[in-house]
């Protein structure tokens, strides 16, 4: 079973809908009631609180408002379902004992809402190895008056020790650096993409050399009436079958070298 991060962006409320039913009828076997947990990172330790029980066949939506006063505003809340209680404090991110599936993974609805609209995707999150790297091409910037675009860089690692990397944003065509931002582990790092000088034919390239992450793109109209949320693929998803992770390595090395020939990937 995986974790489900509760997203945070200014002007929109994050929510997660957990489901206690299997995504298919052949991998999970019988399910039973599960505990709903929220885990977060604080002072070099993982803290977990139990939010109750979720019956078989039911769903439960947890919002940022539900966690006010429990999870510090600065922490990334991670929801989970487990069959047994998690330790209240742990030096490593607790391993979850819930049922795991692969085709598809056991997911939740992860979303953002305003008073007028909501947007979501079906997702899950497992800890990344550290260090690891990120390279992705993100053609999701939308243009127009009163439209705001954000990159939400989601990182999760087993260690609660804080560390920082630099996210470099380039225009892939000219390999021109458009911006650089500090990003933190075990966080939903929100990066505003407006004002970086991207045009409608520019292909933004996002690079982190020592931190892997899920790159989400959130666009909204300023009045909150319209929202869009989706993630881009890792390079391995550009190919299928064979040694696709080797193909990913080739692509990453090529682009790491292209955008900064002096630095060894």
């Amino acid at each position: 079973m995986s974790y489900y991060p509760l997203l945070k962006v200014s002007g929109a409320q994050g929510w997660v809908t957990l489901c206690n039913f299997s995504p298919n009828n052949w991998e999970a076997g019988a399910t039973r009631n599960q505990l709903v947990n929220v885990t977060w990172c604080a002072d070099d330790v993982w803290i977990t609180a139990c939010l109750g029980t979720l019956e078989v066949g039911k769903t439960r939506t947890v919002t940022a408002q539900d966690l006010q006063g429990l999870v510090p505003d600065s922490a990334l809340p991670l929801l989970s379902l487990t069959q047994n209680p998690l330790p209240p404090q742990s030096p490593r991110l607790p391993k979850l004992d819930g049922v795991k599936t692969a085709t598809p993974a056991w997911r939740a609805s992860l979303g953002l809402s305003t008073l007028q609209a909501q947007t979501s995707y079906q997702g899950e999150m497992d800890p990344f190895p550290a260090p690891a790297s990120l390279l992705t091409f993100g053609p999701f910037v939308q243009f127009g008056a009163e439209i705001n675009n954000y990159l939400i860089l989601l990182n999760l690692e087993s260690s609660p020790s804080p560390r920082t990397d630099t996210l470099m944003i380039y225009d892939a065509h000219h390999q021109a650096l458009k911006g650089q931002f500090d990003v933190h582990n075990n966080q939903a790092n929100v990066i505003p993409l407006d004002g970086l000088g991207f045009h409608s034919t520019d292909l933004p390239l996002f690079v982190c050399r020592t931190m892997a992450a899920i790159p989400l793109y959130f666009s909204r109209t300023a009045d909150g009436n319209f929202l869009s949320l989706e993630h881009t693929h890792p390079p391995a998803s550009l190919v299928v079958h064979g040694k696709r992770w080797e193909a990913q390595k080739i692509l990453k090395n090529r682009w790491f070298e292209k955008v900064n020939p002096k630095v060894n990937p």
Partner: protein
Amino acid sequence: MTPSLLFQRLRRAIWTWKQPLTQQPSERTAPISDLFIWRASKDWQTSFELIDIPSLFCDYPHTIPRNVTIFFFDDKGRYCLEKRIPVLPHQRQTLNISSLVGESHGEVGTFAVFHADIPRAVTDMGSFLTERGYVSYRYQQAPLQAYVHGNYDAIARKSDHTFERLGVTGWLPRQYCLQHAMQNPSYYEFGLVNPTNKVQSFTCQWISLLSGKLLSHQIVKLPPQGMHLIHFPINQSEPARAVIQSRLVMARPLVFRIQNSKLDVFHG
């Protein structure tokens, strides 16, 4: 190996042996694409973010024009038309798919995007280049488009210009249970695509999240390459979840959710 572990492995083998998610194309250099859903009508506009994927892996001479070919199919899976689009290396081209498909092929269907060049870096790894890129939908002239990524390696194009559908079916009926709570008031449309060579039957069930009872169901039969939008209004009904039963290894739908004329779109 304990008897319990052996039983588990045997049980899993029934569902997985010779039943991969997608099959390999018969030609080593065949490009692969998802069968993306297009919508074109007064209310719907579809766009596609075209990226020159081969040029991400290697440089090509600027002097030689390169392109992708986009094939359009109607909801019955019948070929409609094809368009060759020149690619711009390392740039983004937002294609108005609704405008490319025109008005004479219905309001919904699928399209596939095939890249002409397959980099050695890909074939040397025994891999295949696949287009699972990004589609966006605009509903009722909204100022914002809603993005969703492709999720299936559905179809390959062979060197003799024929297509090879890559979807795999299992021996036993499988359920795809969308892990999403359908709350009112919303209007849901589930886009189903058949990426196999045979007619497939899909049974869609909507199950109450309060009582667990079946609220409604619908059966659709799709020809190879065909697609269908199943409608489910949830205005007055109880919150529900959707279960899709078929012989596909994974019948993952594309979900359109409309609430107060606002669109949200996501993959199962």
